[in-house]
């Protein structure tokens, strides 16, 4: 009895100090993590990933750490489809990484301009001004201050597996819609499909529609977005947008997409492309370098989605997308600024582009792209026959969400072209 009493008394006396010690240990470890993780030149970097293949951000960070052995960069990859939500939550809570991947423009939850307006981003130094392609300043500048450092120009189109295409008997990619539909049939008879679509994901369904819209809407009316902002046009009354959605449905009905496309995720794309079961997919062509390293026996190149007929202009999508910003609440701003200044240096100017497959931000009209994966779209790029991503100046993220959800609805039969366009207009005006 007495022993029990003594034990309970000792236990009772120990509870308070042990709890206090645990609480203090918890507090101090989060505090010291920032300060002493390898010296004051260390910082953390967060970016979006869609698969497990090495990301170009990782490669950039490794190169920086090799060049600067006293720096440790903590990498925080996040899943791509929820990257914007996670980033906003972290910024709001105050535990976001020091350097963050953002997107130039304003149409997505990860876009630079809304985050800058909410004072979450640090103004960047003059070193990064050299990275901004001319004409795109408004995508990363707010009230004369630069908040995002564009890493390259992303060309969005078809990532096309030449090896799988020739295995299906397709030697040169279609230049008109009719040729495209017959090539779909050719691919199906060879046991493959021409396209693979992750219909259940917003990014892929949305970018598919955006790339097709480049040929059906923006080729004729490059300033369509500005007209919509001025209230001169609507999605519902736009024959180009109607044509875009009808084309998506036409491709689906012709068997151009893989079976079950309406419910597929990103894994369908990664597996299908690397195994050669599917010939191409819609997306940022920079993904090609990642896929190439994962499947060296295939050959991934860029292709443009063909216009409706041969008399229409071939048009692509290219805009500065991936950019780096600094968290305004970061305790390691000096280290982060040094990193960005390094990335802006001329030697590194092409590094991210090379490693990621993006195009460099300057000198595009004079570049010789014939030996790169952009060979098939070199003329488009040289002549400037491209438009930025459709949603880069849409007023809010709901419009793009309505588009992507609408594409999925078209494929399952739940929505009609008219209902999708109407929902996009409703989302625009909210």
């Amino acid at each position, binding site marked *: 009895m007495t022993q029990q009493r003594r034990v309970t008394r000792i236990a009772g006396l120990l509870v308070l100090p042990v709890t206090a010690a645990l609480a203090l240990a918890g507090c101090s470890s989060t505090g010291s993590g920032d300060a002493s993780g390898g010296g004051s030149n260390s910082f953390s970097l967060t970016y979006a990933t869609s698969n497990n293949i090495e990301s170009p951000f990782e490669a950039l960070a490794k190169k920086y750490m090799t060049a600067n052995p006293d720096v440790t960069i903590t990498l925080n990859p996040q899943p791509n489809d929820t990257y914007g939500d996670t980033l906003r939550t972290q910024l709001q809570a105050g535990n976001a990484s020091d350097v963050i991947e953002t997107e130039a423009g304003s149409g997505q*939850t990860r876009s630079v301009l809304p985050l800058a307006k909410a004072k*979450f981003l640090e103004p960047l130094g003059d070193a990064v001004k050299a990275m901004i392609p001319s004409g795109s300043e408004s995508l990363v500048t707010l009230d004369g201050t630069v908040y995002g450092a564009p890493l390259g120009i992303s060309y969005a189109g078809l990532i096309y597996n030449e090896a799988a295409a020739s295995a299906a008997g397709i030697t040169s990619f279609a230049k008109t819609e009719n040729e495209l539909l017959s090539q779909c049939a050719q691919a199906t008879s060879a046991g493959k499909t021409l396209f693979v679509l992750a219909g259940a994901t917003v990014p892929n369904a949305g970018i598919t529609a955006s790339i097709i819209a480049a040929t059906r809407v923006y080729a004729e009316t490059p300033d369509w977005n500005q007209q919509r902002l001025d209230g001169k046009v609507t999605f519902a009354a736009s024959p180009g947008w109607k044509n875009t959605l009808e084309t998506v449905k036409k491709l689906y009905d012709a068997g151009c997409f893989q079976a079950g496309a309406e*419910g597929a995720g990103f894994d369908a794309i990664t597996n299908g492309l690397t195994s050669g079961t599917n010939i191409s997919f819609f997306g940022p062509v920079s993904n090609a370098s990642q896929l190439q390293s994962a499947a060296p026996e295939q050959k991934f190149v860029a292709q443009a989605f063909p216009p409706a007929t041969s008399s229409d202009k071939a048009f692509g999508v290219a805009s500065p997308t991936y950019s780096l910003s600094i968290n305004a609440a970061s305790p390691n701003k000096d280290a982060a600024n040094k990193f960005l200044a390094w990335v802006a240096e001329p030697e590194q100017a092409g590094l991210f582009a090379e490693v990621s497959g993006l195009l460099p931000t300057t000198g595009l009209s004079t570049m010789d792209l014939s030996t790169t994966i952009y060979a098939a779209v070199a003329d488009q790029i040289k002549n400037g026959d491209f438009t930025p991503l459709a949603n880069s100046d849409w007023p809010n993220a709901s419009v793009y969400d309505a588009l992507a959800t609408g594409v999925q609805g078209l494929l399952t039969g739940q929505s009609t072209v008219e209902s999708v366009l109407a929902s996009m207009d409703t989302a625009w005006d909210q």
Partner: protein
Amino acid sequence: MTATLPSETEAVIVPRRGGRRVRPPRRPGLLKFGYWWWALPGILMVLAIHYVATTVGGFFAFTNWTGIGEFDFVGFDNFRKILADPTKIAALGNTLFLAFGSVILSNVAGLGIAIGLNRVMKTRYILRTLFFMPVVLSPLATSYIWKFIFQFDGPVNILLRSVGLGELARPWLADPTWAIWTVLIVVVWQNTGFAMVIYMAGLASVPVEIEEAAAIDGANLWQRFWHITLPSIRPAIAIATTLGLVNGLRIFDQIMALTGGGPANATATLATEMYKQAFSLGNFGYGAALAVLLTVIILFFAVVQQRVGRGRNAED
């Protein structure tokens, strides 16, 4: 009685004789060993984390906050928008369908399994563990596995094709009609064990003598169940259905993992819409309004449930 040895507790709090300290006054009941204000830190934490946080979130329902930056007060605009939007009404319908569907199916199945296991069997404990295991698994992790099972090239379709039912094979989670039933199957699979455990406890209190007497009098299995077993386990039914309904109205993990609210919002519920609006689309005020609406609905059903349950007990 007065010559008992001092109890352990008295030995701790009652000072030794001869000390100049005043004996602390005896308080009644459980407070004998402490002071009421020892609970204050806990109470404050509950108030802060539960009530204050929820109220602040609820306040944003009356604003147009995007989640970052500044906001304006907009009164009931968000609620008007919800009621005018057919997709949100459809989401409300899905919420009620999943809630009632999961309660009814998991309770019926749980009761059936509990009755089946409520007899002496060699495998009784193993079976009980097996049926309860889904409850303790993470809903998100199991939903990803179910997603693989139901995907277009997954085991379910492979099985259907192998037995010659290939035309029934479809992308289950992307089918506008079947997606919500698939989600319901996953939810019921996970929750049946919980209902089973509650009913097993309830069945243990059913008086065996009355059942035996009824059997001797010639009542068949169904009559015995309906007139003896069921009335005796009424409290268990009340608990199981209340918990099931409140949790069913909040289902989130399974839907997000399996379909993300798709295809094209066919499986969207108030909970998933609230997340999408508040966090994915940057309409925090609108999402908060959806959350307030869901809270009101859950409160309503919880109160109704309690009233009905209490009414039944009062009858007895």
